[in-house]
């Protein structure tokens, strides 16, 4: 599952931006599987999160997306979070305990 489509699974179809505008971001799930997305630095990460959920076949909001331990807002962009090329976003599943 992890390595099925490691490259550019969600390329941007909008206007061709310069390469500098885009970065590759990996989304890593609990098992260590990684999916890589290419996204514009100014695109809201909502898009990425939704795409990931879609890809995983889960409902939106099934994952908690963290970047370096910080919860990612839907409005955040790679730029606002200071993401670098090939940075990894963690897709964590909910936890429960009693």
């Amino acid at each position: 599952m992890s390595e099925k489509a490691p490259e550019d699974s969600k390329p941007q179809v909008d206007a061709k931006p310069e390469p500098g505008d885009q970065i590759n971001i990996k989304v890593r799930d609990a098992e260590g599987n990684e999916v890589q997305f290419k996204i514009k630095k100014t695109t809201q990460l909502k898009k990425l999160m939704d795409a990931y959920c879609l890809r995983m076949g889960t409902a939106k909001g099934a994952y908690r997306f963290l970047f370096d331990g910080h919860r990612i807002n839907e409005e955040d962009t790679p730029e606002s979070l200071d993401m670098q090329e090939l940075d990894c976003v963690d897709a964590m599943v909910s936890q429960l305990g009693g």
Partner: protein
Amino acid sequence: MARKRVRRDIDCYDFALPSSSQQVPSQTPRRFPKTSVRVRLQLPSQSAAPVQSRFQLMQSTLASWLPSLPQPNINRNQSATHAQPTSTNSSLTPALNRTPAVNSSSFTRRHTAAFQRRARDVGPMAARMNGNCSRKLSSGQRIAMIHQAEKKRLGASHAARKINIELTQQRERHKAELQQSKARSKMFGRRCQTYVDLTQECNEPLDNYPKKEDATELVSEDEEDEDLQREILQRSSEAKRNPHKEAIFQSRAKPSQKPLPSQHTTHSTVLAKENENDQVILLSSDDESRLKRKPRHSKLVGLPVSDPAFNPPQSSKQEESSQEHEPIKRKSKRKRSRPIPIEDDDIDAVLESVENTSREIASATRNHSEDVKPPLSLKLSSLPALPEHPDDIIVLSDNEDHKPPVQVSKEVPRKSGMKRVSEITVQSFYGKQGRGTGGVVGSHHIPELKNKPSDRVVAKEVVELELSDDESDLEPKRNQTGHITIYDSDPSVTNIKTEPPSDIDDRDFDIRFKGLNGEELTLVASLTSNVPKQLVLAKVEEANIELKGEDFGGLRGSRWLNDEIMNSFVSLVNARNRDEVRNKMNDVDYFDHESEVDLNSSRRSFFSRKRPRTHVFNTFFFARLSQNQYDYQGVRRWMSRAGLSIKELDLILVPINLKNFHWVLVGIDLRGKEFLYLDSTFGDDTSDAIPILKKWLYDEVKDKQGVDEADRMQIDSWRVTKNPGYLPRQRDGGSCGIFTLYMADYLERARLPNFDQNDIRNLRRRTVLFLQEGKLPS
């Protein structure tokens, strides 16, 4: 075969307006009170005409009789839903949901206009709701699905029996009427009228209400809800006396939906403000409508209570509409006197009923035409059918040997749709023994509470309080309240409180242990009880987390906490430490780790030191670090991203989720060179958390400060303390999250934990308030 069955089925149609009764037809009158106008027609079964044309005949006839009604959606009332041949079914279905072209366009026009007028009146909220609902309404498929699901849930046999009863009743009635009237069209007209009347009733008067049995049917299974409601009742009866009596009663009856307009508006507006969600709009507009109705309602309260058919919201409407409703109403009430136990432990039901409610409102608004007057009041009349008058409660309670409906409660119902909430909560005043969570009884700092009366007795006392309400004989009763109340809500305590606390550790001055007042209780109830799962209730900025209904729901009773609650709370602890310690104190205030430890190592306990500069990781830290295998790279930047380094910290706390069923806390006391493993159930470190965190600490220091420093710290030799003596022990089955959070809270403040299982209930409620407020007390 198939044709015959269809014919039989088709003898009886439900012409139902789009509303709850459409989705959940006749089987569940209790759960979804009928609010819509439902017309049932019966054609004599000469049935030479093909199915389709008979159907259309009926439809168009109906349309001509009821020009003011919206386009009818039609449910067939069938005892054999499942066995329906799909072919005929599918051929009918489109027709069912879309009226034939003959009338539909005029219908649409007319009732769009009516709706627009109505929308102007009701306001933008209702309009939006309506827009939302009509979209959903258009899907006949969905309705059918709900229909089916409901059926399945109720259990086939039960449903079938219910249907049979109803069918026979209906048929007999129809037959009688058929014989009476010769002229068919006339007959139809009259019958139509009849059923309009019949179904417009939706509340049952208390007198017809089989109290005992029903109470148990409706009582919520959650002890916490019980307590909450009881306390709300109690507090509100203390605080607010007679002026708003019946309003109070309503607010008690349905705290999550209809807060008291005057005193309790706060949280309803909170809800409304914080979300632009549909459901919220619904809720608040429900309030709104109720408020609008208020004057008329309160006027009507003066009517004789003894009238069994009395029902304020409804009669307010009916007075205006017509008088002939009365006898028929009673008849059908009798019919519906048997409640159905509903087994439903899913908030989905709430969602569903929210939709239903919005549908009702929508249909009501749409339903509106100048002469007929069903708009929002339709919705209103679907509200709690239970005691509208406090007197009714008194009747129950002053009977000495009246047993509150406790005994039967085993078999019974769980929370369900929103509409039922009211009933549940009202009923809960009668008292009920909750399940689970033994040992929560009593309180160690109020001695007389050791003999805490059983739930039943408490309930009785509360009811007596109600009595005193009427007699305006308050003083002696207040003392009783002191007995009932568990925590420091005793008035005398409150009086003392004006003095500044001499000892912070004293629980009396700690807001964590302070009992909630009525307003707070209502707020807590509105946030935790029967809130739609996905409804966003609060946003914790520190953690970037939106807390939804399902998250807050975990704070009820002894339910389990999820990561959202945990991480929200953790972020508040971090924020407090940042504001009160890390940013406030100079580094000079703190010794170097090494020197302090060297000086005092074993003699100084953790709690006698200065307040530690603390960082609490979120619950995903350990998961990320260790989920698959040890992976330091996965969390390498977590500390630096948070702007922290090991050097500048004294305490690191790591809440850990064990296999998705338990929360524990691991503390790394950097000054005392000690690892703390805090498991409220005093379990062992089965997940190797300590070794993993030791390794992480080494790697972290190595990564940030170099391998020399890491080696010098000799992390391997640090002490490991598992479940130290001061750790409070958990005695219920679901509060480990609370224990974990408050251990973090106490360690961050360098305070010895002074709470135990008895405080958990209050701590849970306080947690709701803390999270809602987005701030922890210092």
